[in-house]
């Protein structure tokens, strides 16, 4: 009797320990997959440029690229973080040494090594391919394979931007490219968590699980289908109907999505929302400062961006390491704005528009027809009118607007960009005399010096000090008016877990359906 009793307890203990043991083991194996199997459907807001991940393209494309072909590095909180490049070194004369991750194979069995990465860069650089990311390697003079997993890139000069740009570079199988030639685009092969099955342009891309993915146990789902659904309202309906699990670009539907029981997934707020002045036309710093004081940034954030953005008074998001809260800024203050305009000699006219020497304070303001940008521009027009500035809003098709701003054919313009990099250099643009992007039509060699020096330094403290000096100068002259920083916003159904945002792009290897 006692024996049987003891045996029973022992058996029970054994069973419990086995149960406990296997469950821990299973969890380790799955590395965060709360469940496995199932078909994940994700809605993109635009079609791919190409199924060939090296072609790059829109943010929609990049979500696909990351599923099929891993990137060299990914965007971490403080600059590029390891991915296919496990670690790297850079010297100030422009020599980069990349240590390539070991044990990674392409879907066709080709091993990933330094030679394969070299092949990919050469493919990007081949002018016949017309790949847009080739531009990032324009200063590359040599690509040397040091050993099986070490690659050396020799650039004509060093800058911080180079490694940052590698977050866009997907690596594809050299064997497949060589064997398939022009047909590669119809059956692309990468190292990513998912393998290519089919692509119906404008409609859907079907991928299946890569059994041999280098992150063991992942991905969690059996298949991943991207659907192209251009309208945000329709993506919301598909999510509610359960025909789509995750949808990108849902920033305008936050309230409806939440009330429908959907989950919102966001990145840190790094997308910049700001006002550019054409500095060759709006030359008086008092007037520009008055504009800074006239902008009710919180109202724009609340009404247009559903409180997803955070107000920012100078062009650096608080989540970037070089952020400095001691820089002088000019928040919303109508009295101060009016006082500055009076001081600048602009007298309020009978029609509510200020005048000076018979000339009205009236500006051309082009706006993109992308709805949120148009709404933000409209609000700014109203705010400027309150202090007696007339902004003549011209809503135009996006590319036309882009061209007007780039070419300096405007007085004032609302501007946005996605902020897909987290290094401070990306927020310093628009004012450098030699940059391709200089919508302010401005150039000051003294100011350029800060940026040039910060770009070629490896010392973070030194860089922070340089950006601090730069932005102190920019704000003292109010060369621009920052408004806010926005996140990327996606939505998912409640049963979907583990959707990851990496630098504004969605990653699905750890995503599972409960």
């Amino acid at each position, binding site marked *: 009797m006692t024996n049987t009793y003891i045996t029973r307890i022992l058996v029970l203990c054994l069973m419990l320990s086995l149960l406990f043991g296997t469950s821990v083991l299973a969890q380790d194996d799955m590395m965060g997959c709360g469940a496995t199997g199932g078909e994940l459907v994700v809605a993109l807001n*635009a*079609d791919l*440029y*190409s199924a060939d991940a090296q072609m*790059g*393209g*829109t*943010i929609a494309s990049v979500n696909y690229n990351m599923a099929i072909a891993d990137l060299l590095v990914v965007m971490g909180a403080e600059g590029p973080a390891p991915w296919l490049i496990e670690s790297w070194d850079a010297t100030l004369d422009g020599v980069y040494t990349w240590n390539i991750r070991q044990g990674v194979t392409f879907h066709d069995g080709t091993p990933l090594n330094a030679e394969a990465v070299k092949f990919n860069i050469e493919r990007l650089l081949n*002018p016949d391919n*017309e790949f*847009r990311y*080739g*531009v*990032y390697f*324009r*200063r590359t003079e040599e690509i040397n394979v040091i050993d099986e997993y070490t690659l050396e890139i020799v650039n004509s000069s060093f800058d911080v*931007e180079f490694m940052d*740009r590698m977050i*866009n570079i997907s690596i594809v199988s050299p064997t497949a490219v060589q064997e398939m030639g022009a047909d590669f685009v119809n059956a692309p092969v990468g190292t990513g968590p998912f393998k290519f099955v089919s692509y*119906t*342009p*404008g*409609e*859907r891309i079907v991928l299946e699980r890569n059994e041999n993915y280098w992150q063991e146990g992942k991905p969690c789902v059996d298949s991943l289908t991207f*659907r*192209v*659904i*251009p*309208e945000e*309202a*329709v993506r919301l*309906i*598909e999510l*509610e*109907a359960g*025909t789509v699990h995750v949808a990108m670009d849902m920033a305008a539907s936050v309230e409806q999505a939440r009330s429908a029981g959907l989950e919102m997934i966001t990145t840190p707020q790094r997308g910049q929302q700001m006002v550019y002045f054409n500095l060759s036309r709006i030359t008086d710093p008092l007037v520009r400062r008055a504009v800074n004081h006239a902008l009710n940034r919180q109202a724009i954030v609340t009404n247009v961006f559903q409180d997803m953005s955070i107000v920012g008074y100078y062009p650096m998001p608080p989540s970037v390491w070089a952020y400095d809260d001691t820089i002088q800024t000019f928040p919303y203050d109508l009295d101060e704005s009016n006082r500055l305009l009076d001081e600048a000699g602009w007298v309020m006219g009978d029609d509510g528009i200020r005048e000076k020497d018979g000339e009205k304070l009236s500006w051309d303001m082009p706006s993109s027809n992308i709805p949120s940008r148009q709404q933000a521009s409209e609000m700014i027009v109203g705010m400027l009118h309150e202090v007696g500035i007339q902004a003549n809003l011209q809503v135009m*098709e*996006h*590319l*036309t607007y*882009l*061209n*007007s701003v*780039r070419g300096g054919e405007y007085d004032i313009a609302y501007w946005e*960009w*996605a*902020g*897909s*990099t987290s290094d401070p*250099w*990306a927020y*310093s*643009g*628009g004012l450098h005399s*030699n*940059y*391709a*992007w200089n919508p302010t039509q401005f150039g000051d060699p003294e100011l350029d010096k800060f*940026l040039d020096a910060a*770009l070629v330094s490896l010392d973070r403290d030194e860089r922070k000090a340089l950006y601090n000096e730069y932005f102190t100068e920019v704000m003292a002259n109010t060369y621009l008016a920052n408004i806010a920083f926005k996140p990327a916003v996606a939505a998912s159904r409640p049963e979907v877990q583990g959707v990851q945002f990496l630098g504004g792009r969605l990653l699905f290897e750890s995503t599972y359906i409960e």
Partner: protein
Amino acid sequence: MGKYILRRSFFAIPVIFSVVFLVFIAMHIAPGDPIDLLLPPDSPWVSDDGRAEYEAELRTRLGLDQPLHIQFLSYAGNLLRFDFGDSLYSKQPITNELLPRYQATLELTILAMGISILIGISVGVLSAVFANSWLDSLITFVALAGVSIPSFWLGLILMLVFALGLGWFPPSGRPASAFTAEGIRFVVLPAATLGIASAGILVRITRSQMLEVLEEDYVRTARSKGLREARVVLRHGLRSALLPIVTVLGIQFGSLLAGAVVAETVFAYPGVGRYLLQAVSNRDFPAVQSGALFVALTFVLVNLLVDMTYAFLDPRIRYS
């Protein structure tokens, strides 16, 4: 008849040429540069001095640095050899991209046309037969609403009610051709969206034509012969009223083809309309030109068909 078709086809050539020419000019005088989108999109802040050089090189490679007339001649020359060129973005032959989308749009347009004819003509006849009754007023009101409702809004409402609410149809997409068991469920809502708007116009035309015809002597004669009212209306009335209706149908087909862009966008339907819209915003010149050419060719063809239908509907019309 054969001779007539040949002559009409000949007249189509200047029409097609004008379309090709006008679209080419319109695309090139519109501000905006395709190069902007051919370079890395995410941030235009590049400090790389090589960028300007790269831009220039790309422009030469794509032939965008040539004078406009040279660009046009080379494009037109390729067209004559049935070479539509490659898309500036995907680098894929445009024919490969366009043909599946063209099929999708044709399916959508034909089904929308079917819905439009079914509703438009039957309701129009009903409205004429019961002219000036409450039913007639109701139909006129609904038809007016049908014409006035923006198809974007109608599409979303249909989606909310029949996809999300009742779950009868999937909300959007086109996983397969409309003429397959799987695909037919996906095309119903977009086709209805397009069809309903165009049915409104057909109802009004049918009603007014029928009212006119029903006053004719031969209708009175038919009635006095003691024929059943249904036969009088359909056989003697409708057939004579059809001629102007068919003309309107031909034009309607064109506007359905053009209106498809809205339905295609709302219902995430991969058709020519959406392709063209995307190509225009990307300034993908060859893609826009070829897309417009396909649509124009279809329109010309449908109008030829309409003219040939006249002979069938009215034996007095002869082509020689």
